[in-house]
């Protein structure tokens, strides 16, 4: 099973990018591919800022722009067989209180990784998904920043990093 970073999905939909073919071949594998809610948010953000595409698609689909983004998101998940796993619950952080699990986990691992916030959150999701029993073996991304997390992924989560370049 692999955790798919948003960058792979965006690469597969970006005909201008040289990584498109490799991203597409990864996404079209039959292997189980899992995404987190962070991937959904990042994808929605990318789609929602393509005003012309959304407007044209809304007209073709005869639904509002809001529903068009939801439809495109759902289509992408189905098209590439991406499995979305919901995350629930909170962790209690000393002297802070209740924090949602992904955010608390991102804080907990931050000192070991030196990643920016979104990168930390993706790694936190991998850690939590594994703790929920999802047998993730590979983290696949087109974002070079995740090289900083390679050792952590391998040593602490038993997950290998696959970077497409």
């Amino acid at each position, binding site marked *: 099973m692999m955790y798919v970073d948003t*960058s792979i999905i965006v690469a597969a939909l*970006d005909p201008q990018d040289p990584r498109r073919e490799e991203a597409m071949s990864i996404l079209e594998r039959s292997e189980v591919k899992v995404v987190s809610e962070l991937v959904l948010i990042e994808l929605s953000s990318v789609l929602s800022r*393509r005003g012309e*595409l959304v407007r044209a698609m809304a007209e073709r*689909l005869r639904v509002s722009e809001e529903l*068009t983004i939801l*439809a495109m998101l759902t*289509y992408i998940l189905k098209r590439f067989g991406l499995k979305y796993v919901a995350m629930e619950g909170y962790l209690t952080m000393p002297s802070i209180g209740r924090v949602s699990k992904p955010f608390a986990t991102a804080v907990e691992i931050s000192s070991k990784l030196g990643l*920016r916030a*979104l990168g930390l959150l993706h790694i936190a999701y991998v850690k939590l998904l594994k703790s929920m029993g999802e047998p993730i073996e590979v983290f696949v991304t087109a974002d070079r920043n995740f090289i900083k997390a390679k050792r952590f992924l391998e040593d602490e989560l038993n997950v290998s990093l696959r970077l497409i370049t």
Partner: protein
Amino acid sequence: MGSRVIPVRLDDDDLAFIDLLVKLGIYRSRSEAIRELIRAGMRSHEDVIKVAKAVEELFRMEREEGAIPIRLDGALKQLLRERERFQ
């Protein structure tokens, strides 16, 4: 618009809630309450059905046009640049 009588089994708590709505004067009868609540439930699912049909349409476009109908030219570079900016 015609109407039909259909047998529906409700559990005690749901029926008590419907009776409360009738007692409070929100609906005139159990039948009216159940009709209106069903309509409200159907309205709340309209968007789900619209999205499901739109997704089917996207797959139809792909089949007809031979390509994924969502093109995000230059989006990867933009995403990676934005991640760099986001602390």
